[in-house]
């Protein structure tokens, strides 16, 4: 292929305008948007399949698992529209209910039908049922208040650049527009612990625990540590686009989401190569010129975008001496510390949860189609955290259990089931480090804890896959196995994600960009980072990459 020598200047002739490193969902979204903007784009994925942490794999013959990320709700609607993802196979099956087994032997349910949920709550606490209505409304407004921020390139508050000042003013105006009550509520969510925040609303311990559980996911905080309330809000964002409950399964597993984005990218002209591990980014005179693959091949392009996390993007793909020392120091201090694990079980039948024994068959089936949350009390979650903060996995962890085969029968052989168990806490930095023995011990702790609520579970297990944060890191490449490519802690959000002055997807190396979840707005299958990065790179408002001051 001939390249424009004039346009290329000193640079070698490139078949590509842009190379995206990493075929995770953000990388794919970024590539799709770049292709959509007319850029000849190449995606390079290390693994044999695209998707990163959103992959479907047949771990045991006939049993398919969403190996890592397993539910979806945060995928930005504008992305679904822009890339016409349904046409490429995006098909979300609603996950309608959550059942929390109580220590009393009873259960606390939250159902797809709002009235049914209210009646269920009244059964436990009429007061909380009242509060839930107002709380739901407030969280809706909170999510709405944050929504524009999710779709916004973070301004640099330390910058005098007109664009940053305009953006800060816009942000200030937005905050002011919320009015005092909602602004204060938002401020509380940004600064409080999820347990304290929920204490102001509810009395039912299991309800507070189940809700605050979403405030600890992917972070190394306990529900009583300030900062966890924000993560709570982060997980509510998905609810604003769905009717009542926007969490759901992708038909065929989360891998099918990645496939749909990949399909959209290809249809827009992007090229995707798997089994193509990138060894390093080629830099000449402070400018990215392409990448070198692990097999030695070199591919040149004037734009290189890393979908990997900040540590790999800044400290591994390029030489530190090509970067200013302040960003190196900032990225070294960026917190990953994966805190969760995953256990995937192939089951010969449905687990029998004792808390549902007195319920009719129909309700038990509905419960099995939803999530089971092992979060009987806030103290339970807090004690699970205590184990982890001193370097052990939780003896009795928080668990979010789903059985995708109940909604999507194709995931398991007839009559059999796949169970996905998200587990917290499992610290990446385990005392003595992770070993095969420790991994199995962790798996046993998980199964034994489930057995307290569903005694027949052990007899049903045909296959067990245990994934520690170390495994997540090894397989997906996410540093320290953090599922959000870096903790969603207040000091790592917005204009500080991944580092002050470098939150606008550019890097100090011209032509080298970042688009992973380690940038604003971060984790969850959201795709916003990939989209915003692509918009920064290709316009509409083309801005020259570089340090914003």
């Amino acid at each position, binding site marked *: 292929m001939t390249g424009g020598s004039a346009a290329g200047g000193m640079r070698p002739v490139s078949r590509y305008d842009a190379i995206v490193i990493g075929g995770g969902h953000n990388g794919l979204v970024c590539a799709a948007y770049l292709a959509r903007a007319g850029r000849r784009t190449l995606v390079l994925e290390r693994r044999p399949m695209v998707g990163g942490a959103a992959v479907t794999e047949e771990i045991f013959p006939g049993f398919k698992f969403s190996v890592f990320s397993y539910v979806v709700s945060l995928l930005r609607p504008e992305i679904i529209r822009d890339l016409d993802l349904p046409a490429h196979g995006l098909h979300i099956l609603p996950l309608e209910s959550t059942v929390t087994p109580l220590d009393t032997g009873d259960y606390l349910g939250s159902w797809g039908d709002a009235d049914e949920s209210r009646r269920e709550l009244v059964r436990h606490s009429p007061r909380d049922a009242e509060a839930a209505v107002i709380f739901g409304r407030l969280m809706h407004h909170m999510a709405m208040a944050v929504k524009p921020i999710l779709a916004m390139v973070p301004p*640099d*508050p330390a910058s005098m650049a007109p664009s940053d000042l305009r953006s800060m003013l816009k942000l200030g105006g937005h*905050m002011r527009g919320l009015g005092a009550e909602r602004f204060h509520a938002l*401020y509380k969510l940004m600064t409080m612990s999820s347990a304290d925040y929920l204490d102001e609303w509810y009395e039912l311990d299991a309800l507070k625990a189940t809700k605050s559980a979403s405030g600890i996911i992917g972070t190394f905080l306990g529900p009583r540590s300030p*900062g966890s309330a924000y993560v709570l809000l982060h997980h509510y964002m998905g609810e604003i686009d769905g009717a009542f409950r926007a969490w759901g399964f992708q038909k065929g597993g989360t891998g099918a989401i990645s496939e749909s984005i990949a399909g959209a990218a290809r249809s827009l002209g992007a090229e995707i190569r798997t089994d193509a591990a990138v060894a390093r980014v080629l830099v000449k005179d402070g400018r990215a010129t392409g990448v070198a693959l692990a097999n030695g091949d070199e591919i040149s392009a004037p734009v290189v975008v890393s979908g990997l996390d900040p540590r790999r993007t800044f400290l591994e793909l390029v030489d530190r001496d090509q970067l200013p020392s302040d960003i190196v120091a900032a990225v070294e201090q960026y917190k990953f510390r994966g805190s969760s694990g995953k256990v995937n079980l192939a089951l010969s039948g449905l687990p029998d949860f004792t808390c549902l024994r007195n319920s009719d068959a129909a309700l038990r089936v509905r419960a099995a189609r939803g999530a089971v949350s092992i979060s009987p009390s806030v103290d339970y979650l807090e004690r699970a955290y205590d184990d982890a903060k001193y370097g052990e996995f939780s003896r009795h962890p928080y668990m979010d259990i789903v059985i995708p085969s109940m909604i999507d029968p194709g995931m398991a052989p007839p009559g059999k089931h796949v169970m996905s168990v998200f587990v917290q806490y499992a610290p990446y930095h385990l005392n003595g480090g992770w070993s095969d023995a420790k991994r199995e011990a962790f798996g046993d702790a998980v199964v034994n804890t489930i057995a307290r609520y569903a005694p027949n579970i052990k007899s049903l297990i045909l296959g067990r896959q245990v994934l520690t944060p170390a495994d997540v890191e090894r397989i997906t490449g996410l540093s320290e196995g953090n599922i959000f490519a870096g903790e969603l802690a207040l000091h790592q959000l917005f*204009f500080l994600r991944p580092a002050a002055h470098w939150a606008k997807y550019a890097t100090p190396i011209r032509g080298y960009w970042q688009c992973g979840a380690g940038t604003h707005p971060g984790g969850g299958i959201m795709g916003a980072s990939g989209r915003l990065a692509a918009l920064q790179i290709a316009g509409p408002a083309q801005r020259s990459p570089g340090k914003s*001051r």
Partner: protein
Amino acid sequence: MSPAAFDAIVIGGGPNGLVAAAALGKAGRRVIVVERAEVLGGQSRTIEFAPGFRAPLTADAGWIPPSVVRGLGLSLPPSTPPDVSVTVAHDGHFLALPCDPARAAEVIRKYSTRDAGRWAPFAARLARLAGFLGEIYQRPAPDVDTTAFADLTSLLGLGRKFRALGREGMTDLLRVMPMSIQDLLDDEFECDALKAATGAGGVHNIRQGPRSGGTSFVLLHHLLGAPAGSIRARAWWSDGPDALCSAAEALARRHGATIRTGAEVARIIVKDDAVAGVALAGGEEISAPLVISTADPSRTLLEFVDPVWLDPDLMAAVRAIKYRGCTSVVLYAVDRLPAAPGLGAAEWSSVVTLTPTLEALERSYDPAKYRAASVDPHIELNAPTVRWPSLAPDGKHIVTAHVQYTPYHLDDGAWNDRRAQALGASVAGAIGRTIPGFADGVLHMRVLTPRELAMEWGLTEGALTQGEITLDQILFMRPVPGLGRHALPIDGLFLGGSGAHPGPGIPGGAGWLAARAAIASRAK
């Protein structure tokens, strides 16, 4: 008492109350201060806990905002800067960190050359960040509803003032405040003792551990007014722990203020949504159109004011204030200054912490999460008699133990005398394990659990802070969201204690701002 003999009543004769009275008097208002105790001074007043032994709750002078000193024309009493910033128990001996960064670096070098090199810049960085807080704290809290747009956006980093203070520092402040003190210190240092000594400042008087978010802010808050290089200790008043109060009292009197001690307020009289005065416990009524309360928000609004005047949402917000008193103070009268390797007069006059690592500090916090007292509490010591020998008989000394975590609310029943004595004994035992022979030298002991602090100082849940100083309870959120400007929803009623912005450890800060707001409200 003839009606309206006074223009204003100040409830509470601590630093904030006396500063408020001085400010009102200076503005020509006829003001009366009513203090429930027989002696002025609040938490800085000394109590005689054994014959001839008098101790204050805290020997920390805190930070007096320059704007208060200027505005009042207050002549500050002489103060003595600390030589030692903090001393920490470290395998069998004590490691003292001098305030002077160069000397501190020398001490640290014995343990880590890397840390030694990083110390001075780190101390300077903290001082700069605390300086930003100081700027925010000297003005009324921004308020999203009523304030100029600039006030709110200044929080977002747009304020010209902040830019003047340094754009980089501003970003650093926004990043550091929500961090856990453990993360902040782990990013810089490797020496456990150094991290423990510094980190303990991040959990001072709050029910959180060093791994909790926002504890870096708490350290900065308590750094205000500390001499350059000190990360814990502040200067003390040479003439005595209550010297500042005496100065404020003298100034208030000079401006014509009437001061009554032993006068406990029973309720605040409200007529037609406006303050009319106060009624004392004895039944006596004092009338005035302005009342500034330095009692905490709950006592002021839920005890002193008849609920009929209050909006239910406001009452709910006040009930939601996190007081979480978790500090006990144990006063020991000792026959001599306890000695230990590395522990001399200079160390005793400053902060001595017995908690050797951040993990030990975190572990001492854990039981408090489950509404129980620490099995192995975090103990900080100080000997006020080194600064002020006259507080004890000749040659004798007082050792004050600041003990965390001892929550006011316990799952297994309330605090009582038996538990208090047990706590005092176990604390003495713990001190003895680090300072051999300590218990033998103890002549008398007085244990002040959150229960005693609540009863004797009128503090809700025994919280010395009048409400934890955490990120969700500062600025426009203190005492409750939207009331950060000291005026309460009842006309003429203002909050001027440390439960109001800018909070505890800032004597006169809230009193001054409340008085200013009160004066402005009546000037119109």
